[in-house]
């Protein structure tokens, strides 16, 4: 705590915790300029105001002048009120903000939770003294939690000092980044060109579909016109106006479009290879770093303490070939290792998530009632709709197509939900949660338990009768829903996560 007291000694008059202070008068100017920018982006409101004035006066110049004047006056009043109703105070441990006119907000931001401080000084501030704009960001929301305009420079310095002091009191302070090429770093894996080319091809599943169709393009080109003769699309006037020979040209157009798609996908596959060219993953003193790219070298850093989870992604073709893509996701960004073999993947996981369990065969599926519920709520109404179409009136060509289309849609949804249920699985050990999900692309998440931010358990009357519940786990990078799991299991998952939060003495970020 020596550092905090030194900050207090430096600027003692600013740390009297009971006094509320206002920002400088310059804040009115800042709010005014912001309001003008926002107002003129919102042309709908100004357009509406102008329309009302024009309807009354029938004079365009008078309308513009009056609309502009009224808008600027409103913005100025708003800026003054925003300045008047904004107050802050700094205590030993947090900064408090009181703001809002009609919607009042009282915010407490502990210094230890401030992730980022940005201090800016617009050019016109310099004429009025040492004033700055401060933006304080924690992990609570995506945008800045606190924006203070026209803050005296010494107050901004004090806030920065207190935030830095609070961070230095952490049990595990942030270590300095180490260059990947320094002696402390070592190469974790290096990807060869064949793997990267394979990755580029495997990512474009449509390419596979179109490539398979290539063998049948001639037959498709001949079949489409015949199909249109047997099943002409009843488009009223259009059918009467289109000549018969156009059906042949439709077939040719389909082939040409498919060929263009093929060429485009081939180019994008090569581009993917170029993007990941010479991919090398280093293990540094405080985390990981990847270097890749042919035309543009890209370095991505991932500090170990900021890593939120690891996700292993693979589609059905990659599963057949024994390949997977691993993403190391940290708070705010991610690092991707493409097209790894099984051994490479295991080595990487052992480095990033040491002590993790074997993934194969351990996942428990959620209750089949989850699948039943989705089929009943989505597919059953579609089925009934198809039945309604089939039973109404005269059976025409269009009605038949509609019935088949509706049935196909229902069947598609059923397959979709089945895959979703089949893939969804979870288990846990002492240190990690393991969650698997996805439909066409299987994703497996390995998440340290102590990264848990919040949890929710919900139970409908149907779930209660069957001893089930839905457990949702919230992390900094996202949330995971475990639907229709046993009530006891859900409670134990949450309890074990919270226990890890209390016992593991490592910062989550």
């Amino acid at each position, binding site marked *: 705590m020596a550092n905090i007291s030194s900050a207090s000694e430096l600027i003692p008059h600013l740390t009297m915790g009971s006094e509320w202070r206002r920002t400088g008068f310059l804040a009115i100017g800042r709010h005014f300029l912001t309001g003008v920018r926002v107002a003129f982006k919102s042309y709908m409101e100004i357009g509406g105001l102008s329309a009302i004035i024009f309807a009354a006066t029938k004079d365009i110049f008078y309308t513009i002048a009056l609309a502009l004047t009224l808008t600027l006056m409103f913005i100025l009043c708003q800026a003054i009120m925003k300045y008047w109703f904004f107050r802050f105070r700094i205590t030993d441990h947090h900064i408090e903000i009181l703001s809002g006119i009609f919607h009042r907000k009282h915010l407490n931001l502990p210094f230890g939770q401030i992730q980022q401080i940005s201090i800016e000084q617009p050019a016109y501030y310099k004429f009025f003294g040492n004033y700055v704009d401060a933006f304080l960001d924690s992990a609570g929301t995506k945008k800045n939690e606190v924006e203070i305009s026209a803050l005296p420079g010494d107050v901004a310095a004090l806030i920065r000092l207190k935030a830095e002091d609070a961070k230095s009191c952490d049990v595990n302070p942030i270590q300095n980044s180490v260059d990947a090429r320094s002696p402390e770093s070592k190469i974790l894996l290096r990807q060869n060109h064949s793997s990267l080319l394979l990755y580029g091809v495997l990512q474009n599943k449509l390419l596979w579909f179109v490539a398979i169709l290539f063998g049948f393009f001639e037959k498709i080109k001949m079949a489409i016109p015949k199909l249109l003769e047997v099943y002409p699309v009843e488009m009223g006037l259009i059918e009467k106006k289109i000549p018969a020979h156009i059906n042949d040209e439709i077939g040719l157009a389909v082939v040409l479009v498919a060929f263009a798609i093929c060429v485009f996908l081939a180019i994008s596959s090569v581009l993917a290879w170029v993007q990941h060219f010479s991919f090398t993953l280093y293990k540094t003193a405080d985390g990981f770093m990847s270097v890749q790219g042919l035309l543009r070298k890209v370095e991505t850093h991932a500090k170990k303490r900021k890593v939120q989870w690891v996700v292993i992604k693979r589609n059905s073709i990659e599963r057949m070939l024994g390949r997977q893509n691993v993403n190391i996701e940290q708070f705010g960004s991610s690092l991707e290792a493409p097209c790894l073999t099984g051994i490479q993947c295991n080595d990487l996981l052992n480095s990033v998530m040491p002590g993790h369990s074997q993934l194969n065969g351990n996942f428990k599926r959620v209750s089949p009632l989850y699948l039943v519920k989705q089929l009943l709520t989505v597919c059953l109404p579609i089925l009934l709709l198809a039945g309604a179409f089939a039973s109404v009136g005269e059976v025409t060509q269009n009605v038949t197509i509609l019935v088949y289309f509706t049935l196909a849609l229902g069947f598609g949804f059923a397959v979709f939900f089945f895959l979703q249920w089949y893939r969804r699985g979870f288990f846990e050990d002492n240190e990690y949660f393991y969650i698997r999900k996805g439909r066409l692309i299987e994703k497996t998440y390995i998440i340290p338990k102590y990264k848990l931010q919040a949890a929710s358990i919900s139970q409908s009357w149907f779930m209660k009768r069957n001893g089930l519940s839905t457990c949702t786990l919230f992390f900094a990078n996202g949330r995971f829903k475990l639907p229709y799991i046993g009530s006891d299991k859900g409670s134990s998952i949450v*309890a074990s996560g919270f226990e890890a939060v209390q016992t593991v003495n490592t910062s989550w970020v």
Partner: protein
Amino acid sequence: MSAEIAPEEKAYINALFSFSTLPVAFKLSNQILIMGAFVGLWMSALMGLRFVSEADTVIGRYLLEFFCQWAWLIWVSYASFRWFADDHVCYRVLKHEVSLKKGWITNQLITTPVKRIQHIEVNQGLIDQFFQHGELKILSAGHCLKIRGLPVSEAENIRLELLAIINGEKNG
């Protein structure tokens, strides 16, 4: 969430609030009043502007029928549902976690560990200020726990207690 409550936490619960005794104070929330005002405004506008009687179109007749006959019913149904559902909302502040229990048809229990709290807000809209109640927001990374309809004094007390717990943990 804790199966066994430590003695110091029992005193804490008695001193603060428990699940069974204190639902949120004000059940008729902003949303219901604003929605009612919106419906009333549209009904007045349609009647006052004589939109239907002068235009007498199919759409005009449909709009009038909808807003006069059904909108108030939707509003009353929604207000009644919220009245009963909000009776089931209650919260708990412990040394290590904050929990909110809500839901009428589907029960939901949301918990945030105190260690993961990023910052705390107490918000008051215009109608909230009139009735002296507000919304307590407890933000962690990736989640926001909202307790609506609290008296402002209660919300401030909880805010101060949570800050004291957070600072107490930091001081060891």
